[in-house]
């Protein structure tokens, strides 16, 4: 089938030395786009290259980044998850219900929220793996249901965490003493590392790749693909729950109407990061770089005071150019 393709330049996770080096190279290439964008803005605006602005960029990457990490797993299996945006809103609302309305201890409320996200993922997984509903449809339906339920559960009003100052600290506090570095970014880094390890070093991750690469062959190898697919969707759902916490902690309130559109941004981050929508390959590092490319562009264009209607035009063009350069380089490497 690949007769027309250029011979293999890529490697998969966990390969030998040559493969690892090649893999790194590639990520460096995606990374190069990011660096180029950074360099450009640093020259173009004196306000871009400041510590404060860097943390601002990182901070603005947290929610999309968290969603995109979960989405990476789903997309590597060859699936898609449209429910992460409104699902996140529902999880935010649920965290409000757990922590404010039910007055559960903070930790319990947080765990319950993350698990609630996992449960939504579980339902997606069951619909997809057992009932064989195409992922696009199953998660589209979940997207609509979550959108509605977020309003129903919250009675269409935000839930405020004013009585829970430690809740907002999860996002805006500074765990590292003396350094202005928001906890939210730490959280993103930690979950990214965990997700990266799970994806490359564990059975869950390996099966995620195998299912995306050839689901039938994986099943015939004696792997219960249904069970693992459900597990992967449920696992990805945990990130939706976490994103719900991160966004409501940042805002100090659970906003039931936020979220629509975040799924597309998350998918975009994943795809710009080099994960193929047809499944079988991708990486967490790539996803993070993809998310950073988007948020850096948004930030830089605003800093440069480009009129907003032009910002999208430029954003679109830069994404095209970044991805195209990446394709060119891969060809030449």
């Amino acid at each position, binding site marked *: 089938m690949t007769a027309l393709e250029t011979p293999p330049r890529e490697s998969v996770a966990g390969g030998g030395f040559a493969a690892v080096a090649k893999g790194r190279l590639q990520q460096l290439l995606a990374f190069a786009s990011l660096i180029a964008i950074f360099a450009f803005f640093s020259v173009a*605006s004196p*306000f*871009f290259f*400041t510590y*404060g*602005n860097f943390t*601002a960029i990182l*901070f*603005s990457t947290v*929610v999309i980044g968290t969603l995109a990490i979960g989405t990476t797993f789903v997309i590597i299996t060859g699936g898609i998850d449209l429910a992460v945006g409104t699902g996140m809103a529902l999880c935010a609302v649920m965290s409000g219900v757990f922590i404010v309305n039910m007055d559960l201890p903070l930790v319990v409320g947080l765990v319950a929220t993350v698990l609630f996200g996992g449960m939504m993922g579980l339902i997606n997984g069951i619909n997809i793996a057992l009932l064989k509903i195409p992922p696009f449809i199953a998660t589209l339906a979940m997207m609509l249901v979550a959108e509605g339920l977020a*309003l129903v559960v919250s009675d*269409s*009003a*935000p839930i*405020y965490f*004013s009585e829970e100052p430690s809740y907002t600290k999860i996002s*805006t506090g500074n765990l590292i003493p003396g350094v*202005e570095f*928001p906890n939210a970014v730490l959280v993103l880094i930690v979950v990214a590392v965990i997700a990266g390890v799970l994806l490359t070093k564990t059975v869950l991750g390996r099966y995620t790749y195998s299912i995306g690469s050839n689901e039938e062959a994986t099943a015939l190898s004696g792997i219960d693909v249904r069970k693992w697919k459900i597990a992967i969707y449920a696992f990805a759902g945990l990130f939706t729950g976490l994103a719900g916490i991160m*966004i409501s902690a*940042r*805002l*100090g*309130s659970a*906003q*039931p*109407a*936020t979220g*629509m559109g975040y799924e597309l941004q998350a998918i975009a981050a994943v795809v710009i990061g080099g994960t193929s929508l047809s499944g079988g390959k991708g990486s967490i590092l790539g996803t993070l770089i993809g998310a950073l490319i988007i*948020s850096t562009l*948004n*930030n830089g264009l*605003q*800093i*440069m*005071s480009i*009129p*907003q*209607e032009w910002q999208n035009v430029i954003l679109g063009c830069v994404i095209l150019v970044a991805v195209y350069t990446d394709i060119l380089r891969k060809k030449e490497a």
Partner: protein
Amino acid sequence: EDGGNAGGGGGGGNGEQPYIAIVSKGFQHQFWQAVKNGAEEEAEKQGARVTFVGPPTESDVEEQINMLTNDLAKSPAAIGFAALDSQSAEPLLQQAKSQNIPVIAFDSGVDSDVPVTTVSTDNKAAAAEAAKHMSELVGGKGKVALVVHDQTSKSGTDRRDGFMEWMEQNAPDIEVLEPQYGGGDQLESANITKSIISANPDLKGIYAANEGSAIGVIKGVEESGKTGLKLVGFDSGKAQVDAIRDGSMAGAVTQDPVNMGRELVIAAMKAIDGEELPKSIDTGFKWYDKSNIDDAEIKAVLYE
């Protein structure tokens, strides 16, 4: 009147209850939820049944037209309508007229002679009020930024233009930056706010044109660690009220959405009964800040 039939949804139970269909500009935002609550309260009081629908964003004009079409199919006794775009709705308004269904416009006017009355506030004037306060707060000079929720909807442009026009005419020393639009999304507005602050170290104040933008601006300023910025908001809601109480926001203009909902239903009931109505009913707006936030008349117009 044959409009009072409860639909198949069977909400009302009482077939005699007049049915008022309200098609709003939005649904999920607090502002619209407050209108909805006001309308529902009043309807209950008057023994009427209302439904309240609105498109997900204020740019979904076609969706609103579909909603109006669907509600017309239910032959309501009256329709409350806040047009996203007056002209697009004209054929449907004509249809309502031919079916003898009175239409009450709300929130902003409708360029049509069909509506029997318009229950609204003047967004431009309200925004000008915000501008006036901003100018006072920053001492009549310096850089001021705008975070607006929408660049095409009437509420977005009126709240932007009202502010900018007042500044242009009355505060020549204030430099108003290019408005930025955050779609009313708190997170996006917060990110925008931080970028604005990074790019303009000499910024004096920020005006947020609706509740979502206001929350975003408050968060963005807080996260950036910048102090001394004067923030002026729009609408109410707990986050904004709290910010004004603790001083992180200087004040805000609020309309009275709950009252708008009430007046809308009152007008509709009168129209159903064939009573004469004034051409327009102004539900007004108020400036509130730390000094007057606990006044009874302000408290009454705030929603949380």
